[in-house]
């Protein structure tokens, strides 16, 4: 069963027409299928040419979007999943392990969302507890030890706000990862594949290259949260989304990210194979570049990039207020 967003409705209608006609052997029906397919392509182009910010936010959260595990399966060979933080538990909101990509060994870590109730019970809608971040930390340190480049796939509404998470130090777990990633002695490539939800995303998001897929978001707070605080009305979320500049294209312009990876027509969920190929190619070419840098240079560059983020005024006379 496919899921359709409100603005994908015309696409849904054409899909159901196509499947109705396909069930028939009638020659006319086969012709209709052809026509519908052409129409589908035109409709998609039309819809995707004029997406609003809010529609892009919805695409980033589309329930049919490929998740971390889908990408890991399709872009790596011989993925060996590793479990547990060795301290408390195995948090399935974070998936991680060793693998080969194009013949090279890597460590790969991502947030994992679920497709159905059972899966989401286990991986908590992709919202990690501290043990998830500490599992990631353990794998990062292992990557450093065995000199494996680190790839992270970001896709979370945020770190989980709950009693257990607080008791076990959610804040400390996130903070520790930021500090360790800033200085981890292997190349790090971070890719936002869906939702970049605040500190819970950043906790696996510090690296040498930060890329976002075309229809993904990354922000300090969700549009809903922002709207309910600043507008005192959660239904103002579309407006908040625009104000927050959370789209890949916005963040490229602001120099927060390095690269926007173009998605296939209709979004990643419309052609998972193609987007996986795009990601794979990007990782391979980026790794080649990063591995040419010597370690000191790599770490200095990583630090300097973080160092540059932010805008402020030094002298009041130069300011506008």
């Amino acid at each position: 069963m496919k899921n359709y967003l409100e603005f994908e409705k015309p696409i849904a209608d054409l899909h159901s027409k196509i499947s109705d006609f396909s069930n028939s052997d009638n020659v006319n029906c086969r012709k209709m299928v052809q026509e519908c397919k052409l129409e589908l392509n035109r409709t998609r182009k039309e819809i995707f040419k004029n997406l609003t910010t809010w529609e892009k936010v919805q695409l980033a959260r589309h329930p049919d979007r490929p998740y971390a595990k889908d990408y890991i399966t399709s872009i790596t060979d011989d993925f060996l999943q590793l479990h547990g933080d060795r301290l408390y538990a195995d948090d399935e909101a974070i998936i991680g392990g060793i693998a080969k990509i194009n013949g090279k060994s890597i460590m790969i870590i991502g947030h994992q969302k679920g497709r159905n109730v059972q899966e989401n019970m286990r991986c908590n809608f992709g919202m990690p507890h501290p043990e998830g971040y500490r599992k990631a930390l353990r794998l990062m340190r292992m990557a450093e030890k065995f000199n494996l480049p680190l790839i992270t796939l970001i896709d979370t509404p945020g770190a989980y706000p709950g009693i257990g998470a607080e008791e076990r130090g959610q804040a400390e777990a996130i903070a520790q990862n930021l500090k360790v990633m800033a200085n981890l002695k292997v190349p790090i490539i971070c890719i936002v594949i869906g939702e970049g939800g605040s500190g819970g995303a950043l906790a696996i998001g510090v690296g040498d290259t930060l890329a976002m897929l075309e229809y993904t978001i990354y922000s300090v707070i969700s549009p809903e949260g922002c709207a309910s605080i600043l507008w005192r009305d959660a239904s103002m979320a579309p407006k908040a989304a625009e104000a927050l500049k959370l789209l890949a294209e916005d963040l490229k312009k602001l120099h927060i990210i390095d690269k926007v990876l173009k998605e296939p027509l209709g979004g990643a969920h419309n052609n998972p194979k193609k987007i996986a190929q795009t990601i794979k190619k990007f990782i391979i070419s980026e790794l080649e570049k990063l591995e040419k840098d010597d370690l000191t240079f790599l770490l200095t560059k990583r630090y300097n990039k973080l160092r540059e983020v932010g805008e402020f005024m030094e002298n009041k006379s130069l300011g506008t207020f």
Partner: protein
Amino acid sequence: MKFCFDLEMLIKDLCLNEEIKMSENKQEQKSNKEKRSVPLGVWNKCDNCHEILYAKELNQNKKVCAICGYHFKFDAWDRINLLIDHETFIEYDHEMTSADPIKFEDLKMYKDRIKSAMAKSGRKDAVITGEGKLSGLKLGLGVMDFSFLGGSMGSVVGEKLTRLIENSIKEKMPVIIVSTSGGARMQESMCSLMQMAKVSATLAKLSEARLPFISVLADPTTGGVSASFAMLGDINMAEPNALIAFAGPRVIEQTIRQKLPEGFQRTEFLKEHGMIDMIVERENMKHTLSRTLKILLNLNYSDGKGVKNAKN
């Protein structure tokens, strides 16, 4: 088709700034109440024991309730004067002010919010940084200011703290940061979020130089500040009864739909769960910091010339 986690997301994200809002509301309520019942600025009511306290005495007592020991929020400059030896503090970057990197506008323009925060607090942004002597020991000190937009961290806070730490590495000084903040500043969106990574990255350098970082957590320390430098002290100290959390209590209450236990996310709870080294009362803070640093740095109590045993 309906998305299942809108609610969770909403709830989770409230946490970053919820404390700011709460305290703003509280302050509004408080001042309204004060206007009605007691002459403003003469009397204060203790949040804990509800005793009416004479404001002048409360100030003399470093904003600690003389009856029950409850620690009120403390002004940033008062804090610096409390910790740093007389006339030894040199402020850094005191002219730095917020820009408006994403031209943020909600019901109010971010620029106007900054302007009115400046007017209200008399400060330029939410942190004061500089160097000074603590019982003779030269060190880098950053003190956050909750009165400026809930102590929220945007580019200015991130940059000032980063410079403070970088300079301390250069001068081989230990670093103390006193946190009190609702978290990352929404109006600078990703520019704010990335300050968490930026300050943490600089702290990694401080660690490599084997210089101590003492984090002092004051009421409240939540969201993006607790989830970055505030939790990264070699030693984490906290004042009594401070709210220290990733997600604020109201957010969690809404998520799990049950009442939270008494004392949840307060200093004492944090210590019990292994997140802080010690609870230090305001009046003992300077002495405790001095003792701690002198032991860590292998200095004699009479000797306050500087850090000798840092990485050479």
